[in-house]
Each structure stands twice: as C-alpha cells, then as structure tokens.
C-alpha cells in the first residue's frame, strides 16, 4: 500500500506533478478561482452563466437577493456594481453575503460592506474585508435608501430560473423582501416576494475574487 505524505510516497518518489495534473483536471470540472490574464483579473457573479446583459431598477427599502454557488473555497475582497440611473444626492447602499439554507433563505451574514454611494452614474467598486467562502450556497444581498438602476446579467441562476407552475407563467426574475434601509440584519431577513418576467433571473452584483 502506498501512503502519500507531503507530495511524496513512501518510496520517496515526487508525486506533486501528478497532484498538479489532478488539480488542473479538477479545476476544469468545477468553477474555481477567477479568469485572469497577465495582471488583469475578471470579476464574476458566481450565480450561473449570463444569458444576456441588461439593466434593472432596484427599489429602495427592499433587500434584493441574488443566489450564488461556490464550488471550492475562494477568498473575496470586493464587489462591483454599475449604476446607470442614479439615486438622489447623498443616497447610499449596502451589500452583504449570507449563507443560504436548503430553502435558499438567508441565515448568517458572512460579510457586509460599508455604505457605498448610489448617487452618481458610475461603476462602483467597494472593498470587502478579505473573506473566505467555503463551498456552498449563498445569497448576495443589496439594499438602498433610493431607487437606482443597475447593469445586470439576465438568466444567471440555474436554480431560480424556475417557474412555480407550467403554462404562461413567467420565470423568476428576482427575490426580495421589503425592509427599511439599514445595516443588513444578522441573521438575514427571509425573502417573501418573487418577481416574475419572461426575462429570467437578474443579477446586478459582481464579486472580486482574490484567491485562488
């Protein structure tokens, strides 16, 4: 029987090459890390493959949730939104990530941002405390004190691109709960509203992945 310890087997043979090979294949099968070329890193939504890009108006005093799945541990350090129609002067938003239970409802708050401005048309990049996300299901959450319109992807959720029943019913566009603007609650507030349109799930938040 061969026992592998620290990259070598009992015969002292280096098996790290094989380990790297296995890792490469593993990475090809599951979402891991982030696309990167040279020093340029791409940001990801982790909620599925975008079908198309569009914009979405997100109302004030609502917690909007975007489901996402993490397949292998990653470290995140920022999030990105693009505001295309701004809120009024001085308006703000907050972002956080919750663990999600098997009902896709929020449980513990994993990380939360400071307030970021929604009062101008811009790409907004906000730093997050460096946080490791283990494999599992999560809900990105965003809430604001003003209605604003964001760039979004559509058709991104493999799990919530669903409908409650067949027929002429539209698929789910988003899930949310009405809640006065404040720091995100911990544990989270269960969503109780489902928005449906023919356009599929919308996700307005991208994540900056630090490692791997």
């Amino acid at each position, binding site marked *: 029987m061969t026992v592998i310890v620290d990259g070598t087997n009992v015969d002292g043979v280096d098996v790290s090459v094989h380990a790297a090979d296995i890792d490469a294949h593993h990475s090809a099968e599951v979402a891991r890390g982030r696309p990167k070329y040279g020093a340029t890193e791409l940001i990801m939504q982790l909620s599925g493959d975008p079908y198309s*890009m*569009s*914009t979405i108006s997100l109302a004030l005093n609502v917690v909007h949730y975007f489901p996402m799945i993490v397949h292998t541990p990653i470290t995140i350090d920022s999030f990105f939104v693009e505001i*295309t129609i701004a809120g009024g002067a001085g308006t703000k938003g907050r972002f956080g990530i919750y663990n999600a239970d098997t009902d896709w409802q929020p449980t513990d708050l994993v990380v939360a*941002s*400071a*307030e*970021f*401005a929604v009062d*101008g*048309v*811009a*790409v*907004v*990049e*906000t*730093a*997050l*405390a460096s946080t490791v996300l283990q494999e599992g299901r999560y809900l990105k959450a965003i809430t604001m004190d003003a209605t604003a319109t964001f760039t979004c992807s559509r058709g991104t959720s493999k799990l919530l691109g669903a409908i409650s029943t067949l027929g002429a019913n539209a698929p789910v566009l988003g899930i949310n709960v009405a809640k006065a603007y404040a720091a995100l609650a911990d544990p989270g507030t269960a969503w109780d509203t489902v928005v449906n*349109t023919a*356009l599929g799930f919308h996700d307005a938040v991208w994540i900056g992945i630090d490692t791997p």
Partner: protein
Amino acid sequence: MLRTKLHRHFDVDGKELEPTYIEVSDAQLAEEAKQAKRERAIQVLEGLTDVQLSKLGNL
C-alpha cells in the same frame, strides 16, 4: 475612439477613494445604448393590456 466611464472606489470603511476611469469604445457605448432601448421597449410591451397587445398584433 475610446471614451471613459467613471469608476468610483470605496474602501472597507466606506471612505471614497480617488476615482479612476475605464476606457470603453464607441462600439461598446453604442451597444449599451441599443440594449437600453431594447429593455425599455420590453418594459413598455409588458405594461400593455391584452386588448392593447391584440390591437398591436392586428397592425
């Protein structure tokens, strides 16, 4: 021709840092404008009643 988009930065404490600018092409801006028009058209269509839609279908 390249144009720029404002890129605002906030640190973990919510302090706004110096902005930077993202270069985008005229083609990208044009595509975004076209996409916004499409989205608006869809929103208008979704707001129509069945009767209005049926009249539209008869045009």
